[in-house]
């Protein structure tokens, strides 16, 4: 696609969308959002770059292959389940840290379910991008 407007905005949209996707990911535990939507949003950012310039550019900006993104996501999700096992609880038991205050963001409460959500985020993002990159690579 050769729209100048799209090309100009796409590059600046990407960081915004990425930041937005992290917010969605983080707030998901208490408000609408979560890893699934966050992952899709992040993927959308790269897809816009891919559409406005070309897919190779999107790949360059992503740096790592979407396959590894997927793999890391799956591993993170699985690992978050193992942490519970180490404390003697069954697989996938949620383990939470104590809450603490952070400037700007407010009260932070971290736990393994959030780590799991990060895994979902990465896996979903990797899935979308991998599918997209693959489909765009076919040449006739």
């Amino acid at each position: 696609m050769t729209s100048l407007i799209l090309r100009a905005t796409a590059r600046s949209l990407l960081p915004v969308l990425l930041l937005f996707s992290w917010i969605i990911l983080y707030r998901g535990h208490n408000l609408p959002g979560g890893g699934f939507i966050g992952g899709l949003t992040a993927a959308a950012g790269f897809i816009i770059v891919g559409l406005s310039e070309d897919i190779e550019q999107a790949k360059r900006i992503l740096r790592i292959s979407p396959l590894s993104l997927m793999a890391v996501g799956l591993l993170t999700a699985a690992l978050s389940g193992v942490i519970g096992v180490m404390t003697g609880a069954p697989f996938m038991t949620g383990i939470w840290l104590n809450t603490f205050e952070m400037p700007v963001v407010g009260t932070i409460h971290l736990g393994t379910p959030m780590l799991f959500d990060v895994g979902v985020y990465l896996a979903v993002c990797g899935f979308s991008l991998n599918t997209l990159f693959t489909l765009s690579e076919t040449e006739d």
Partner: protein
Amino acid sequence: MEIFWIILGILLGALSATTVHRVSAMYSGRLLACIPATGFMWLLTRVPDIHDHPLQGSISWFPQLGADLSFHVDALGLLMALLITGIGAIILAYSGDYLKGDSQQGRFFVFLMVFMASMLGVVTADNLILLFVFWELTSVSSYLLIGYYHESAESRWKALQALLVTGLGGAAMMGGLILLNRASGTWTISEMLNSGLSIAEHAYYPAIVTLFIIGAFTKSAQFPFHFWLPNAMAAPTPVSAYLHSATMVKAGVFLLLRFTPVLGGTSAWMITLTGFGSITMLIGAVNGLRQTDLKKILAYTTLSVLGMLVLLIGLGTPTAIASAMLLLTGHALYKATLFLTSGIIDHETGTRDLQRLRGLRRAMPITAAIAGLAALSKAGLPPFFGFIGKESIYSIGFAPGAMVAILPMIMLANMIMFALALSTGFHPFHGAVTSDTPKSPHEAGPAMYLGPLILSVLGLVFGLLPGITVESLIGSAVTSILSTETDIHLSVWHGFNVPLLLSIATIAGGVVLYRMRVCFWSKADESDRRRLSFDRIYTFIFNGFVAVAKCQTRILQSGYLRNYFIIILSVTGAMIAFNLIALGGLPRTFNIRDAKILDWAACIIIMASLYPAIFGRSRMTVLIALGAVGFGVTMIFILHGAPDLAITQIVVETLTVVLFMLAIYRLPNFRSHSTRNMRFFDSVFSGIAGLLVTLCVLKAQHVKLAPSVSNQYSEWSYSLAHGKNIVNVILVDFRALDTMGEISVLAISSIGIMTLVLTRTRKRRMEKQE
């Protein structure tokens, strides 16, 4: 608990085997052999007081399911464990040299040690589920070992055959074990045995016995499942020595022995075991006579011995069980030896064909001596251990009646065994030297002959001094099998009596058969094709399965999207219709007066976009119209308080449109391929499907099949899971395992798309280059 550490140690050895092999390809076999050897030494120290202090220990695994990592080793288990670790160590050291230079050798050690650990598990597990897990593991690892030469299609086919036959038995065994638990009320084997319980009167008894026997028979290659064992000779010789003589094929026998107090003693048990046992014994012996391949002969004699063991277990008297234990131990020693020496012959001369092997004793004197010792034990000559076993069988004292017929059968089998012992242990080494072998023969290295040497000397030592070596262990093993105190006394010389006369007759017959051996050989080849009929039945059934699967795939997987939709929608629709009827017919009341104006707006958007979606003449129109439908649905989600769903829907909808756009340029021009009738059918069909789904949704509001979980979830969401967004908490905490599964499916499907698309692209690229 120590037994657990031994098993774990061997498994860790398996994990490190490839690394060890990479570091030191020269000594890897010998290094890895240290692990089972250490286990063997430790187990040996437990022999004296095993009778009074069985080894046991338990680690909780899945207590809810009754599955624990519990072990219980009594004399029977210890004897088997000694054979497994002892012979296992010898095999590892031996195969270090036997497969030297083979590029896959590291993997071989991995498979072998996994097998060793699982076999050790089978004989020591005290929990029925654990037993089953190990039982299946032996099948899987033996599949990998038989198919070790995986470049050969024949070897793969034979490995698969062994896996399928023993796998069938494994499935039967699982059923048997579960029913046994239902009948006895416990998962713990020792508890079952100690309670002196017999389930012969239980309603499940016939089913349990049948399933158990199928499991044991497939594993121990009893008629009619015997055909896989000779085929499994496709494995490297050390594997045959270990799996197909000393250990795995004894697993079925072991299980029959183990459960004799619980299942045995009935006439059904006795008749089945003696019947099938004697058939297997004779089939093995007679077919063995016709073979000229050293390994094939050994395979068939193994079959024969397994049959004899099952027959003895079927008889079930203390003497019979004691004879079975003697035979089992003696057989493990001499048969492993003979396999290993035949491996040496194969390795150093390049052939295993008896017709070409003569006069090797000059070239390989040590191997000749070892094989000779083992053959004498196998032949059952005094003062070897094999003789004691045979004498013991002859002294069972066959009651008059039907059982009388068994004695001549055993004698015949023993005569043939005698002849075949000489064929494998003497024939290749004696006679005139020929230079007919592919390689010029020479002696093997010490790593290869030391192991069989130990085993064959043991056969002599146990025979000469049974009282101070094996008597007590075998005595306590018999006691532990029958759960009643039994005393046995072993010695080579019992005085002039009936068993001795029978032994002399056997030897005489055996010598005659040995001298006539060449007469049987000539018929081997042409009868081979005719005789392996069970192999052909197996092939027939196998091909039948493949044909049915193909046929079914062709019907279900037509490749037309339209057909898939019709199948999926009709099944879904039929299920909805069935449930609507089962739950009392159509929904009676539904209220559209509550719908707000915005709801109507969303509905109108959806309905209006449907028209171009259905009747659009270009893909782009259809695509955008479908997108509008999606956004209409999103609106409803927002209106009814499901923001999570709405966001997801928007993002998914957007991405779908983008993905479609990418694909749309590559699709052929939009054309309608359907006829008028097809379109009519499709519209009626989808109309019905849509109607049914609508009815289902309406009905769902009035039907409550189970108490709703949502109240419970909303209560727990914050208190237990520290989250206010229930949807997210369900996804990442309450049902995290499901989510894990879903993202795995995503990953798999993405890789699937990649393979599909990229292989095609690459193929095109290659064609272009050409």
